[in-house]
């Protein structure tokens, strides 16, 4: 504390207090006479302030009391800019009764005359001084009582504050405080009066004043006379008209500071250079067009919580309603005609929980591995955790569903499909023809879709060729094993993105029912990798069907068209598959053995 001087003893401050006669009032006349010699020289003051075991108890008590005032006055330098001692406002150094909060303690109404020291003791304890005398009955600890008794024995008088309070209680103004409560109301005029009163009070009690400002200020302030400096107790004087210091709450100010734009680790995913003619990389650079996937300014968008732009905030009910609608749409895509209420709710909750789970995973990964991993690695970890490390399945889903969005091209694809399917020629060349026929159709699609599509078609070509070899080898086997009844398989090739290992899947349903039939066993495949060989051996003799089925995701026979005549024509007679039970591995396999299991798509 700068005001205590370099050695921390505070001799200068003590001298200043002495010059204003504060020590006399603080200590009382009796103690003052024994105290004043110590102020004669710095050496004496040092010996006074220095803790020494040889000192007697009264000496220590005196020292403590002197220290209390000294440090209290010096503590302002902890909070304010430390300036020189000369800048101290003399009024600040004066003793003021309203520095300590005491008025409302012990109820205010029933002033307890039997324990005059009670409130005072609590007041002094609020100042953190433990040398208060007259602690009395407020604290029931025996040691405190003992201390107080000892103090009384040594005749240390009550502190100045105690004396002040006793005097003040006796005054008329104190008793009047609690009298007229009913007539007091909160009015704007009284509040503004209170504010000006508080303002003046604070100005008078300023710790540090420059010479200039003191000249300019109110002469009453320079005076510092006790008459102008009556104690101000707003908690009793203006009970109803107290106004906080600042209209702006502190917490709000902190909130405003938090609008610092920050970038999460996943905010900077690798940006792709699209070949779209509209948004070329050059345009992005020159014109500063933001890529479309970065929705808005990061600082603004998230700082104001989406109040800008097109970002909508959803309530809980809205979200659940929307999720139910989404579920209806998804169920429709999958092939259901209707659903029960409970099932709908259950799936809607499942949807929300799943998104929650994915969000938690993302957050956990981003928080835990923010420093070690890049955004791409985090994304890969996330996909692995979620079970989508094989992106092909997700891509398929997108392609399937995107076809349903573009019904016009779909019709054309369907017509081609319809023409080819009834033929059911097991020629692979025909399938390739189909592929080529569809290519012109694909060109009519959106360019970006087509681009991704084209890549997949190339992959398909490779797959197809591989498939041809396998089929030709196994065709003879299956023709022997071919049986008459019941539905099944098609063959699907599932490709992982990183390796071109085909995972053969067996379709369990009539192909026309499932646009997502590829995905049907995607989840099963990882579970039963050992069955791949069996699956390979279980390829149907209806290669055309298989080929057609394989192409279906490309041409997207989607449910919205389920009622079209081509769909009903497209249905091929089902074929039983060897090793079906192992593939299904469960209850449902038993159901397919009966001849009732000629599953056909629902008639509309």
């Amino acid at each position, binding site marked *: 504390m700068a005001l205590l001087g370099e050695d921390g003893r505070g001799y200068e401050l003590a001298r200043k207090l002495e010059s204003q006669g504060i020590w006399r009032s603080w200590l009382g006349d009796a103690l003052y006479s024994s105290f004043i010699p110590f102020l004669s020289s710095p050496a004496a003051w040092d010996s006074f302030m220095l803790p020494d075991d040889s000192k007697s108890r009264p000496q220590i008590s005196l020292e403590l009391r002197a220290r209390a005032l000294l440090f209290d006055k010096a503590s302002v330098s902890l909070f304010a800019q430390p300036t020189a001692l000369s800048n101290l406002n003399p009024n600040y150094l004066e003793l003021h009764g309203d520095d300590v909060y005491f008025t409302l303690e012990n109820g205010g109404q029933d002033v307890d005359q039997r324990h005059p020291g009670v409130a005072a003791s609590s007041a002094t304890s609020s100042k953190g001084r433990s040398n208060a005398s007259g602690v009395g009955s407020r604290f029931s600890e025996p040691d405190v009582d003992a201390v107080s008794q000892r103090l009384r024995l040594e005749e240390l008088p009550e502190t100045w504050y105690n004396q002040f309070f006793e005097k003040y209680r006796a005054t008329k103004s104190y008793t009047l405080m609690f009298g007229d409560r009913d007539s007091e109301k909160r009015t704007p005029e009284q509040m503004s009066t209170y504010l000006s009163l508080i303002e003046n009070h604070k100005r008078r009690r300023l710790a540090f004043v420059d010479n200039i400002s003191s000249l300019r200020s109110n002469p009453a302030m320079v005076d510092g006379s006790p008459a102008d400096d009556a104690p101000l107790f707003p908690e009793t004087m203006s009970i109803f008209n107290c106004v906080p210091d600042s209209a702006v709450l502190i917490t709000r100010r902190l909130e405003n500071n938090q609008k610092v734009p920050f970038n999460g680790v996943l*905010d900077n*995913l*690798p940006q*792709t250079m699209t070949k779209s003619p509209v948004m070329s990389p050059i345009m992005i650079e020159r014109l500063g067009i933001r890529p479309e996937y970065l929705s808005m300014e990061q600082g603004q968008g998230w700082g104001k919580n989406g109040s800008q732009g097109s970002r909508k905030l959803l309530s809980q009910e809205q979200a659940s309603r929307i999720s139910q609608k989404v579920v209806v749409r998804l169920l429709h*895509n999958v092939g259901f005609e209707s659903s029960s209420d409970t099932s709908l709710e259950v799936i809607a909750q*499942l949807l929300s929980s799943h998104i929650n789970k994915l969000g938690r995973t993302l957050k956990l990964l981003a928080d835990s591995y923010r420093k070690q991993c890049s955004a791409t690695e985090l994304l890969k970890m996330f996909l692995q955790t979620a079970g989508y490390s094989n992106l092909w399945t*997700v891509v398929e889903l997108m392609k399937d569903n995107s076809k349903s969005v573009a019904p016009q091209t779909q019709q054309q694809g369907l017509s081609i499909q319809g023409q080819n399917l009834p033929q059911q020629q097991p020629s692979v060349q025909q399938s390739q023809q189909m592929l080529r026929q569809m290519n012109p159709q694909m060109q009519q699609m959106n360019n970006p879709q087509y681009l991704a599509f084209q890549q997949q078609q190339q992959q398909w070509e490779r797959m197809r060729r591989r498939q041809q070899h396998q089929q030709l080898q196994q065709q003879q086997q299956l023709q022997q094993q071919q049986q008459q009844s019941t539905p099944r398989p098609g063959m699907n090739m599932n490709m992982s*993105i*990183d390796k071109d290992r085909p995972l053969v899947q067996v379709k369990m349903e009539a192909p026309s029912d499932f646009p997502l039939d590829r995905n049907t066993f995607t989840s099963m495949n990882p579970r039963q990798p050992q069955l791949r060989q069996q699956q390979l051996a279980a390829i149907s003799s209806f290669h055309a069907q298989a080929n057609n089925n394989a192409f279906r995701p490309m041409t997207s026979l989607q449910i919205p068209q389920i009622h079209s005549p081509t769909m009903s024509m497209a249905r091929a007679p089902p074929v039983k598959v060897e090793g079906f039970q192992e593939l299904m591995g469960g209850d449902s396999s038993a159901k397919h053995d009966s001849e*009732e299991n000629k599953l056909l798509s629902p008639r509309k």
Partner: protein
Amino acid sequence: MNGQSSHQQPKDGRHDDDTALTEFLASLMDYTPTIPDELVEHYLAKSGFQCPDTRLTRLVAVATQKFIADVATDALQQCKARPAVIKDKRDKQQKEKRLILTMEDLSKALREYGVNVKHQEYFADTPTAGLDPATRDE
């Protein structure tokens, strides 16, 4: 396939993965998932994840869509696999039934995913209902 992203060198398999991922992210912007972005963001924010990049939102949407589609597909299988009433009069269609998603099918499908929504088979009206008669008599 690797020609689009110029900053990647597709020599490593890892880089292949990266480019594949990058392009997949790009393709996400061309595809509008069935689940709207606002809904996904609502639930993501609920779990504490925020990201201004719409691609991530769509990735989550697509992943969820796939998940729900898988569940629904499994339920559809269950529905179709259940033997239905055969109407003898109609010879062409041996089986006619409407594909209605019921809790029964759904619960069987969800069991594979570790979600137990099985209904109680019966509800007991007394504490001793369903107990062995010998113990009941005691």
